[in-house]
């Protein structure tokens, strides 16, 4: 078990090294003078020079890369060109809304999608199955922003049940936070739910056709117990895997959802950085998002040992 976890942990090192390498050399491999592009069309030569010096672009490339990696290891993601603040400070200021949104979306998606998938597999080829499958096909096609604006239109503008946009920090009470995060989490969770429901159904269908399920039924085990204890537990590995794969969708979706709902999180930080061409912020956020994805996948790899004892060996 320990060796398994250790091996997984070591495997994340080359992945993160490639991410750092990629993010760093992106700036140097793109055609043209990066300092001039970042400074914009109407910058003076002095301004361009300032940016070049600030980013260390005037030094030899290997020295730059060495310094970059060293800073990353110390938790220094660089300095914003525009505000002169460390990227890490900016990230900390904006972390809460994004984290709350991600956790809420994950919870909503898992809690709604797994029962949907189980039900669809249990009642395969019935009307329920068709509705769930229809939903999962639609969920893949409808873009986050359309779902978001539709939800705002119905639940905030027409019915006035929930706030239109914005975010209430946890410090002002969890009730306000939950109200402000409900619609964004539903909008963002749509694709994720479609993905999880579909894979849950497929995985359950396969398990339900196994002999031990028939044995359990013949023994007279209650249906709910057959479904949850015998079937779902054995169908868990693909479901958990897809939750990990979907996490990447979630991160991309966070950026768009925060823009739709005016949530001042990491996504808005990204969008503001695009508009100001503040490249160090974008670099830092890529590293951070990639690291969080690698971490989630590590946790998922470890969680396999809970579902499948064979992996522990």
């Amino acid at each position, binding site marked *: 078990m320990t060796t398994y976890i250790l091996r997984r942990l070591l495997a994340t090192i*080359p*992945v*993160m*090294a*490639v*991410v750092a*390498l*990629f*993010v760093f050399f*992106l*700036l140097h491999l*793109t*055609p*043209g003078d*990066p300092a001039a*592009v*970042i400074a914009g069309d109407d910058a003076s030569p002095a301004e361009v020079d300032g940016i070049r010096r600030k980013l260390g672009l005037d030094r030899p490339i290997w020295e730059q890369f060495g310094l970059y990696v060293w800073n990353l290891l110390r938790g220094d993601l660089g300095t914003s060109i525009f505000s002169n603040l460390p990227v890490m400070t900016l990230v900390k200021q904006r972390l809460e809304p994004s984290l709350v949104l991600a956790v809420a979306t994950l919870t909503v998606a898992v809690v709604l999608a797994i029962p949907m998938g189980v039900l669809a597999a249990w009642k395969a080829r019935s009307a329920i199955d068709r509705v769930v499958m229809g939903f999962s*096909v*639609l969920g*893949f*096609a*409808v*873009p*986050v*922003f*359309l779902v978001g*604006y*539709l939800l*705002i*239109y119905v639940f905030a*503008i027409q019915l006035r049940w929930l706030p*239109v946009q914005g975010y209430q920090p946890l410090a002002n009470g969890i009730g306000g936070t939950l109200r402000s995060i409900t619609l964004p989490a539903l909008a963002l969770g749509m694709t994720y739910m479609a993905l999880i429901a*579909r894979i849950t159904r*497929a995985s359950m*269908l*396969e398990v339900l056709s196994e002999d031990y399920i028939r044995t359990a039924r013949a023994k007279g085990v209650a249906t709910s117990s057959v479904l949850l204890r015998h079937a779902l537990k054995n169908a868990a590995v693909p479901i958990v895997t897809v939750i990990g794969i979907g996490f*990447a969708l979630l*991160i*991309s979706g966070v*950026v*768009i959802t925060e*823009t*739709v709902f005016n949530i001042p999180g990491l996504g808005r930080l*990204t*969008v503001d*950085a*695009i*508009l100001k*061409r503040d*490249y160090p912020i*974008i*670099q830092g*956020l*890529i590293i951070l*998002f*990639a690291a969080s*994805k*690698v971490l989630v*996948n590590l946790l998922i790899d470890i969680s396999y040992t809970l579902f499948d004892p064979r992996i522990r060996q």
Partner: protein
Amino acid sequence: MAIVAEPLPAPASTRQQSGTMRWVRRHKTIVVGLVILAALFIVAVAAPWLAGDPLQFEPTNRLKKPSGEFWFGTDQFGRDVYSRVVHGARISLIVGLCVAALATFLGLVIGVLCGYYRRIDGIVMRFMDGMMSIPAILLAIALITLMKASLFIVIVAITIPEIPRVVRLVRSVVLSVRARPFIDAAIASGTRNSVIMIRHILPNTAAPLIVQATYVCASAILTEAGLSFLGAGTPPEIPSWGNVISLGRTFFQIAPWIIFFPGLCLAITVLAINLVGDGLRDMLDPRIARRM
């Protein structure tokens, strides 16, 4: 099955017809998807004849509701949203098709080389793993921020993060084909590597690759819209669906039609492509079809 008398062969023409009908009935999703896509393609090609100038400003017609004159309403500059949506179909289709073609081609080349030459495999696959852990939209944002915005750059920026998934798929197929005896036979009989790769390995990747290409196409169209929505995509003077939606943000509460119509078109397009993809997957791999 019991022994049944062979039915008399029907005349060639009707048998062919019933064969086609049977195919259509069995693969409904592909047909529905293709019909929608064909309609969209016609609209995109005929855009200049179907709708007026998408860039024409008419300040007196600001934020008009959908009506007989403006089917999809007007935006804050008095531009006809219908005309902008019709022209936007061109951008979405160009981006979807170009990204699908480019990503599949590059992924195929890298994947076949990786699966065949085990020495480069380790390094290239580590690189692909790293790229896959960067969210696609952020990778595209980083590329676009560093270059002058143009449709070409958008296509390149969306293609790059799509490549690793194609590489993985192709590589896994190549690895399984490579282990089969006929490849050993080809090597033993002195066939050149390039011939083995092109004549014996490539054809086996075709079926899964076609399915994957449809998903890449759908995902590219959504990513382009997302990037344009965030202001990091297609240059704002080009009326892509994402750009139309992006402009509608400010006036959403009083003019929701600016967002709804392009959003709906986007959803229908992606749905149609996914239907074709799902249908093709079921057709080409009946083993999965039974499960899904």
